């Protein structure tokens, strides 16, 4: 298979198309404009595919909702403030059990923030983000090739669990050009039939897709149904990468761009003989809690590195409990740490806790 040098945003667009996505609606916001631009051109040449530049983020997510009701694989993308606007629709889709892929190329925040790469939206993504106490599956790619696999996987997960899936990246993931290979495209007609879609009540009773359950008993049942689904997702779908952890005495925990940097730092300190490794959550929700807890049988120090002032660190603390000491190193605002800086933080911990004995 030939390798192509491609920008991250374009990789997402191509991977989505190959996953059978045939509907995209979005609204311009930096740093993700290259993705809608790619979709507009790709879909203009693709029979049966729809691109709409919506009048707002609200309209875009609701158009995606409609396309999803009609049974079509659909995607929207935005960046932090735009994702906040989309939360209304994401909540409705979670309630109505509609699949969709929502890409968030995060920027600094809160508010308008800036367009530099950060991980300020971990809480928003992993806690549902909108009202009503739902969850969304959150995938955090850290390379061009993983943008391919995770974008495609996002569509499968969305369909299997009938739930919105968030692909969480940042400007660095979106802009960086790396060589990637793509699998053969999926023909949407070969995907499993959605027996719940709205396509006209021909030879069957009319269908309803709604999130309104006025009767508290019904609402309770619906919420328990969602809870069981979320429990099943937690049971089956956690994904992480373990890097040089077998003999490690300290684990760096980082995701996305931060993990890419952390990997460089681990390589650097390894050369100096420090036994550090990297634990990289690929699904942020469900968080690979058990896998991380299992590590604490041998690893007693965990360094969480995030490009914010501390969000995933809470999930790490929940995961390891009293079994390990959790340290944190964060750079909010769009500062891109160097591997050197993280290596320095690791080295200090080794020195302070005498971990190299």
């Amino acid at each position, binding site marked *: 298979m030939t390798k192509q040098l491609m920008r991250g945003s374009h990789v997402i667009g191509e991977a989505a198309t190959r996953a059978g996505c045939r509907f995209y609606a979005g609204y311009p916001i930096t740093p993700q404009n290259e993705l809608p631009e790619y979709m507009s051109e790709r879909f203009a040449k693709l029979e049966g595919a729809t691109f709409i530049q919506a009048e707002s983020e609200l309209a875009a997510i*609701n*158009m995606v909702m*409609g396309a999803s009701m009609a049974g079509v694989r659909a995607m929207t993308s935005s960046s932090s403030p735009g994702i906040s606007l989309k939360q209304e629709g994401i909540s409705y889709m979670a309630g109505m059990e509609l699949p969709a892929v929502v890409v968030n190329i995060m920027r600094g925040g809160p508010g308008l923030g800036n367009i530099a790469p950060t991980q300020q939206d971990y809480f928003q993504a992993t806690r549902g983000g909108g009202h009503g106490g739902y969850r969304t599956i959150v995938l955090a790619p850290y390379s061009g090739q993983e943008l391919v696999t995770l974008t495609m996987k996002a569509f499968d997960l969305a369909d299997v669990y009938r739930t919105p899936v968030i692909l969480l990246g940042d400007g660095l993931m979106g802009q960086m050009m790396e060589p990637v290979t793509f699998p053969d495209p999926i023909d949407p007609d070969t995907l499993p039939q959605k027996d719940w879609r*709205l396509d006209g009540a021909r030879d069957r009773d009319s269908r309803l897709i709604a999130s309104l359950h006025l009767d508290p008993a019904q609402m309770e049942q619906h919420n328990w149904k969602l809870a069981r689904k979320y429990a099943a997702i937690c049971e089956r779908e956690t994904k992480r990468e373990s890097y040089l952890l077998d003999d490690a005495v300290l684990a760096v925990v980082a995701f996305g761009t931060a993990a890419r940097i952390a990997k460089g730092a681990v390589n650097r300190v390894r050369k100096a003989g420090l036994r550090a490794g990297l634990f990289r959550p690929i699904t942020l929700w469900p968080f690979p809690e058990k896998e991380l807890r299992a590590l604490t049988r041998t690893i007693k120090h965990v360094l969480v590195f995030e490009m914010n002032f501390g969000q995933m660190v809470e999930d790490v603390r929940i995961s390891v409990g009293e079994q390990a000491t959790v340290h944190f190193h964060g750079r909010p605002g769009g500062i891109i740490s160097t591997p050197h800086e993280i290596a320095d933080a690791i080295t200090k911990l080794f020195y302070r806790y005498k971990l190299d004995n």
Partner: protein
Amino acid sequence: MAKQVFKRPDAIKENVFHYCPGCGHSIIHRLVAEVIDELGIRDKTVGVPPAGCAVLAYNYINVDMGEAPHGRAIAVATGIKRARPELIVFTYQGDGDIAAIGTAETIHAANRGERLSVIFVNNGVYGMTGGQMAPTTLLGQTTTTTPGGRLPLRDGFPLDLSQMLAVANGSVYIERTAVTSPKNIIKAKKAIKKAFQVQMDDLGFALVEVLSQCPTNWKLSPVEACRRVEEEVMQNYPLGIIKDTTHKGD
């Protein structure tokens, strides 16, 4: 054998309407259902109800239905229609839904000429939430949030959404109707049918505004409420075709 001249439309479910006595929604639901029957499109029609009194329209209109967040019905309908253009997609929205919280979605869908049939029910109040001021509330009209009556420089002016939408180049058919009398009901049905036909003919955006009565929140009897529509509301929102560039006649 006696000839049957009146029956429940196939597109109406056998549920008892929850609407208040004298409310226009029940009539308008029936008109939509009759039109769907007559056009023979029940098995390819998808409806998007609003948030508001008609949120439960899916309990009555017997077609596939997908719920939309408040004001977003036209965006949801756009997604359905663009994803599957062979479907006939309509929205059914109140004045608060379409002309306040959903104004942006509505104007842009009309401007893009989305092939949708929009039923816009204008009763001048937020009915479901208890009778607050709507964008369409008349000047001087008392609601639960306009004590002493709507004042223009405090509460703004009544919004004529249909006129606004007529300016959009993508809209091809807009008519204002009412359901206060048999004569008006027949006209309203004709307009609704045309709005569906326009979509079937792939011509552009079609909207029928229906002036409706809300006896409960207006604190009037059903008969008085109909009279109010005819004597007051129609003065501000005159009935008739606002835009028709279909060049196909009726």
